């Protein structure tokens, strides 16, 4: 087994499949060459890493063969032997192979495992070092003439991946590079009571050492605190495609080169913290930066803070729910959350506090920042101790069940009264059973109709305002905190929505999954089906016929369902139970520092499925 992660090379392609940046690491490549020469035979020998033009054309070939940049992922009728989708595994959309054709020699060489990360208009490819037998094994898997591997077969992808930790490292490299080239490498948001949000590492650095020129730079755009899920898909309902989108931002190659030279000078990743690396590049060190006398600075804290001391925590719950309002299907509500922290403390102190808020019965998982130590299974008296880095960081992630009832419950019904008109009814209750100080800051419900054009709507809600766009109707129930503090709210909204006449879209010329076009007689079937019970079934039947296949990265075909998506933000105690008592936060060695804690609860995928229509479900195991 490889003991670490080494990168042989990396390439960035734009959306015209042109290599715009490449970097090869000779020291690692040299190791690969030696390994290949040891294991070479008639079918296997060492090949030079491809030049940019060779790589670009191999990438374009694969795209053509596999339907898209990512590929089919699952074996379909178009899958050819030797290609990734022949292996029949969704991960082959992320760990790909390329066949490099050397024109002059007329031979083809297989490059695997190439990590593919698509970010904005760019495709990032990273090639980690593996052992020749891994490559040979993969090559056999793509050429096996059977029906797709059985789970637990002798030579299988799972066992191969388990033996290759370098793939994980290479992915992290690819993601970090993706964030850097799109300028999205931002620190997690930490909210302070005094100001809406505080800056990042550079701000605390420049603030503490007084470099006005740098601190005057525009603040980075704060990323949403919670790692975003696929919620964007739910709102827009737009056709998601893995095709890179056009971006206007040119690639800053110098920034990238400088990052690579610090983070992985020889191809072995050493420290991928972009905020630290860029701080070191921009700020450098002065002779006044003396290391602490008694302790060693950890790698994650190259600079020490000087100035007024305080420590801030932001607890952020994100609620995901699938609400059915049906007897036979239970609603599902889960909370994922994180605690962000910013410790403006001098020296290298340890901070600790007890983890009392999270009820062990409801917590599904907890993970911590590497600077933290948590004694294993301390029962209810578990405490976390950490030596904080400078700047904002995510101290912990958690997943938990909701400690109270769902913040928004009720039902959504939509029924098509004619082909182009739907009658709907919402009956919701907000914050039922909730008490102050938990207050709801805003709450809105959106009905997306991505495949129909909304012409008009009728109806007045019992509370709030309604507006529509071409493809959605939005009901803003609560827009300011004052109107809704600390009491439960009943909200109803009956109405009708009218659509422009349905126009069948062209069938996809190739199915991206199963790969067969519809039966030619399928239209006939619909027209002749006089036994259709009502107009609703007819329109649904018609509409579902030209649904396109979604990507494997989507949970289901959103467009096949009618649903309403709830978005809200609440301030106050968390729903997961996660809380920190400022009095219980201790700092060692003891210093006088203010402790500020803020909590917010926002919606993730919070979906009300149309009670009268189809809805996706999953079986809940009876534990």
């Amino acid at each position, binding site marked *: 087994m490889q*003991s670490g992660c080494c990168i042989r090379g990396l390439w960035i392609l734009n959306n015209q499949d042109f290599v715009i940046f490449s970097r090869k690491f*000779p*020291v690692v490549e*040299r190791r690969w060459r030696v390994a290949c020469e040891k294991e070479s035979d008639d079918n296997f020998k060492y090949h*030079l*890493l491809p*030049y940019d033009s060779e790589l670009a054309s191999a990438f374009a070939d694969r795209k053509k063969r596999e339907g898209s940049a990512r590929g089919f992922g*699952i*074996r379909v009728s178009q899958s050819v032997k030797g290609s990734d989708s022949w292996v029949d595994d*969704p*991960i082959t959309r992320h760990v790909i192979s390329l066949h490099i054709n050397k024109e002059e020699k007329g031979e083809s060489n297989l490059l695997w495992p190439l990590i593919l990360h698509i970010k904005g208009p760019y495709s990032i490819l990273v090639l980690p070092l593996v052992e020749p037998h891994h490559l040979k094994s993969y090559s056999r898997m793509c050429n096996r*003439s*059977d*029906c797709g591997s*059985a*789970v*637990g077969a002798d030579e*299988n992808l*799972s066992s191969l*991946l388990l033996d290759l*930790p370098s*793939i*994980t490292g290479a992915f992290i490299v690819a*993601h970090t590079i993706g964030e850097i080239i799109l300028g999205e490498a931002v620190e997690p948001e930490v909210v302070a009571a005094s100001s809406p949000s505080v800056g990042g590492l550079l701000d605390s650095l420049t603030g503490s050492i007084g470099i006005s020129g740098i601190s005057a730079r525009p603040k980075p755009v704060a990323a949403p605190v919670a790692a975003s*899920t*696929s919620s964007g898909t739910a709102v827009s309902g737009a056709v998601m495609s893995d095709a890179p989108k056009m971006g206007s931002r040119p690639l800053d190659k110098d920034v990238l080169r400088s990052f690579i*030279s610090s983070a992985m*000078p*020889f191809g072995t990743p050493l420290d*991928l913290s972009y905020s*630290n690396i860029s701080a070191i590049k921009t700020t450098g*060190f*002065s002779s*006044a930066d003396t290391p*602490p006398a008694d*302790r060693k600075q950890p*790698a*994650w804290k190259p600079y020490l803070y000087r100035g007024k001391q305080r420590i801030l925590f932001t607890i952020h719950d994100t609620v995901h729910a699938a609400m059915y309002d049906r007897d036979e299907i239970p609603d599902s509500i889960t909370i*994922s959350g994180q605690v962000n922290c910013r410790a403006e403390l001098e020296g290298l102190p340890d901070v600790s506090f007890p983890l009392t808020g999270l009820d062990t019965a409801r917590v*599904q*998982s907890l993970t911590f920042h*590497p*600077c933290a130590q948590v004694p294993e299974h301390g029962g209810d008296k578990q405490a976390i101790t950490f030596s904080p880095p400078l700047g904002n960081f*995510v101290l912990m*992630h958690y997943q938990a069940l909701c400690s109270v009832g769902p913040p928004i419950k009720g039902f959504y019904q939509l029924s098509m009264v004619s082909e182009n008109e739907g009658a709907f009814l919402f009956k919701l209750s907000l914050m039922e059973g909730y008490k102050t100080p938990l207050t709801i800051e805003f709450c809105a419900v959106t009905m997306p109709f991505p495949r129909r054009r909304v012409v008009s709507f009728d109806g007045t809600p019992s509370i709030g305002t309604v507006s529509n766009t071409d493809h959605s109707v939005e009901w803003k129930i609560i827009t300011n905190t004052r109107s809704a503090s600390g009491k439960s709210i009943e909200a109803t909204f009956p109405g009708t929505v009218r659509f422009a006449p349905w126009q069948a879209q062209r069938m996809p010329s190739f199915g991206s999954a*199963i790969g*067969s076009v519809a*039966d030619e007689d399928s239209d006939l079937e619909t027209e002749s089906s006089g036994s259709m019970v009502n107009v609703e079934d007819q329109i649904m039947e018609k509409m579902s016929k030209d649904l396109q*296949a*979604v*990507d*494997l990265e*989507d*949970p*289901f*075909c959103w467009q096949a369902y009618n649903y309403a998506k709830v978005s809200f933000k609440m301030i106050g105690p968390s729903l997961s139970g996660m809380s920190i008592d400022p009095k219980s936060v201790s700092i060692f060695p003891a210093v006088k520092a203010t402790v500020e804690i803020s909590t917010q609860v926002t919606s993730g995928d919070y979906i009300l499925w149309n009670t009268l229509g189809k809805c996706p*479900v*999953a*079986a809940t195991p*009876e534990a």
Partner: protein
Amino acid sequence: MAGKLLSPTEWESVIDDYNLGGAANLHRWTGGASVVDLCISSLLRKDFPVQLKLNLLTFLEHDSLDDSPLPSSSLSRLIDALRSVIQSPSDPFALKDQFLISTTAIFITSLLDNDELISGSPLRDLVELFLTIINRPNHGLDRHTRGVACECLRQLELAFPCLLSEITPHLWSLCQSERTHVSQWYVLLLSTTILNVVKLKPSGTSISSMSNATIPLIPFSVPQFLIDGVGSDFVWKEKEICYKELRRVVAAGTSGFFDEGAVLMAALHVRAIALPYFLGIYFKFLDSFQGQELEVASRIMLLSKEPQHHLVFRLLGLHWILGFFALIVGEDEAKKRSILDMSLRFYPTIFDPLAIKALKLDLLAYCSSLICNPGDASGLKGVEADKGVYQVTLFKDGLVSVSAFKWLPPWSTETAVAFRAFHKFLIGGSPHSDASSSSVGTLIESDIFYTLQVANEFVCTAPDAILYGLVGRCVASEVSRHVSLEEVLAAMGWGRQ
């Protein structure tokens, strides 16, 4: 043309041409002159922009991959240039750092291809330059460059094992002194050196004690055994180095050893990175972890459930579980049982991406295949009835998550995932390697097969193309050598009407 100095614009074209099509494209620019020499002259020009110089250095690194190894004279010129940049007060640290890195990379590729150069002065000079740089612990301004120099030395040590073995005591003392954030880089260098000493046991080494250096740090000389090329025949001589001392150094540096992973993790907040390494340790000491298999599997399972991770890590997590099970299960009935006890945790959830659903269905199919032998299921958690019922429950429950395939158009991804699962459940009970013709009977008599028959209500509504897809998979299969296709189709009621 030789010796012609290229302008910055010309260099940019050279580099672009090279990246696109390799060294063959270079001749028209260099006119046959040595690329390295041309680069070195440009690197020393004060009027060239720093960014271009950085590009030149990476270009040189790339070129070292497919060009023949550099002669000793070029390497010496490269070192001279490096030395002048390092000593120059006006050159920025970014250039100094990159110059150190690129020179090391070029040296490693050139020297490994030409053993004779190892004894020459360039390698000695290079190491000596690095040692001079790192020999200033806690110095303020150049701390990052010291870290880079440590990494360069480490790479040299990895390429030429035991190169630094004789100066290990000095590295140990530097490690103890350094307190800035680059102390980790010193620890990494020391640990690599010690690892090589322990692994390769150089006989000619003159380390007698870790705390008392017998030779000075500078001037440095390449150990005789490397020059003699006896590296692979090292014989351990116990007297020459004190085991106890080494153990003490390793213990003191333990935190440092683990920092290699920690540094990476610190940057990422992604514990996913730690898992595969942990699994690596686990497999090496499989016996020591006896009885903890389930805890390991549960932890990996959590990874796949944590939405803050990128989809890829969640997919990898599921693959690791599958690979892990395959590794531990063997013929051990108790382990099979504990895996089957976990099966409820593999149920797909509604918001799982289809890729995750597909792999969780694989896990369920795997569980189903584990109880192929009669009697396996007795006493299992959640198995009140016989194994057939259990298998069918797993299959039906799992499939609910993609049940929309019943009414979605045949090209939908849900359909693809569902039929992939059919296939996995079906062949799960009939391993490809099974050469016995009795597998026909086994397959058709299996409960899963029966369930597929029952599932006919929707399977029959699926277009022929999909059925052909599923059948097509089986046609090429090893299984089908023993299973008559007609037999399968007839049993399924799929024969074309």
